[in-house]
């Protein structure tokens, strides 16, 4: 568009997901591919997801709770500290909720 000079201002903390939150992709946000890469498509663009981010998002099916996601990931990465995993998952989901890519 002729108007691509967008910016966002003023960001304060948003509520973190709780242990019982059931995160899912927000309406109109979905998986896609770009070349070989897995991406999440949303109205303004796409994010390339890989590594931990991809592992988290793939578990966000609107059924599993945050606690279940943390348990699954902690088990998958044998040595992972569940408290640390929970912190990473919460942070990641909160950032995506703010962009309106994830709901919980």
């Amino acid at each position: 568009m002729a108007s691509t000079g967008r910016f966002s201002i003023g960001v304060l903390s948003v509520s973190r997901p709780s242990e019982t939150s059931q995160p899912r992709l927000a309406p109109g946000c979905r998986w896609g591919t770009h070349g070989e890469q897995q991406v999440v498509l949303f109205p303004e663009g796409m994010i390339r997801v890989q590594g931990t981010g991809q592992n988290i998002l793939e578990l966000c099916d609107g059924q599993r709770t945050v606690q279940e996601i943390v348990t699954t990931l902690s088990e998958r990465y044998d040595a992972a500290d569940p408290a640390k995993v929970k912190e990473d998952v919460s942070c990641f989901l909160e950032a995506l909720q703010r962009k309106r890519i994830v709901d919980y």
Partner: protein
Amino acid sequence: MIPNPLALIAEITHRCPLHCVYCSNPLQLAATKAELSTAEWIRAFQEASRLGILHLHLTGGEPAARADLKDLIAGGHQAGLYTNLITSGIGITEARLARLVEAGLDHIQLSFQDSRDEPAKWIAGANGHAYKIALAQKIRQFQIAFTVNLVVHRQNLDHIEEMIEFVEQLQPERVEIAHAQYYGWALKNRDTLLPTPQQLENCLRAVEEAQIRLAGKVRIDCVVPDYYARYPKACMGGWGRRLMLIDPSGQALPCHAAGVIPGMQFDNIREHPLEWIWRESAAFQRFRGEQWMPEPCRSCDRRTEDFGGCRCQALLLTGDASLTDPVCSLSPNHHLIETARSAAESDVEQVSWSYRTNMG
């Protein structure tokens, strides 16, 4: 190396039931009989997908003025594109919306002119406000992304807070508060649309407050009017770099307004593959990269961020598309913007618009 485009803006028709005074369509609109057929559009979407494009933005005019909108959405979706419908909502009933969603629509972007009925009618030159509200209330039944687009300018910015509360009630995930951009019909009406500095300041404060209040519920994006910015916008993310626009008759343009630039030849997707147009056509190469840049852009650190601003705006305001966009505070022609801003501060008693017309 030329990067692949990421998005295709498909202006599927210039027909529109509204006559908004800030319409960014060209003053010379494409006639209905020149419009691409359903099959031609779908072929273009397939080529776009093969070229690496991810997003398809269906716009116009009013895209719902095309009876085959559902087929176009299905064509885009089946080609693997993320489909976005940019609409006034006029002509979309609940039943039709259900069919568009069924066809694969991912996102609807619904425009509002105002929070109030009378001013909305005054700006659009037509009735449509109540219809838009009714449609907005239906959209949430569907699993698609919903953005409300609110165009702001001098005539409505005095009640920006009310307008934000109004759009919030419609429960979109996103609100885009877009200052009118001065191309096409908006440039004709610039003296009555350009906000005052006080209005702009108040608007930014109101937006910031709303962003804090609605964080996590509604994402609010605000497009700062480039007339008040220090540096130009990265128009289209750089000429021939991210985006491609196809007009109703099949001409491929690097920017909405590029048709105003004298001497430009636009190739038509009826005659050339999309990939050839992107990589080889003269129009897409004209301002690609940095070779064309004059000073002060050529030696400026910001040239890789804003790409010298908008070529069409440079043409419209200075008569030369290859100059630095005059909205840049470093442009030797920046006085043109300062003059326009001063005019915005003087009182206009009588507003007389040029309403956007329609072609046959």
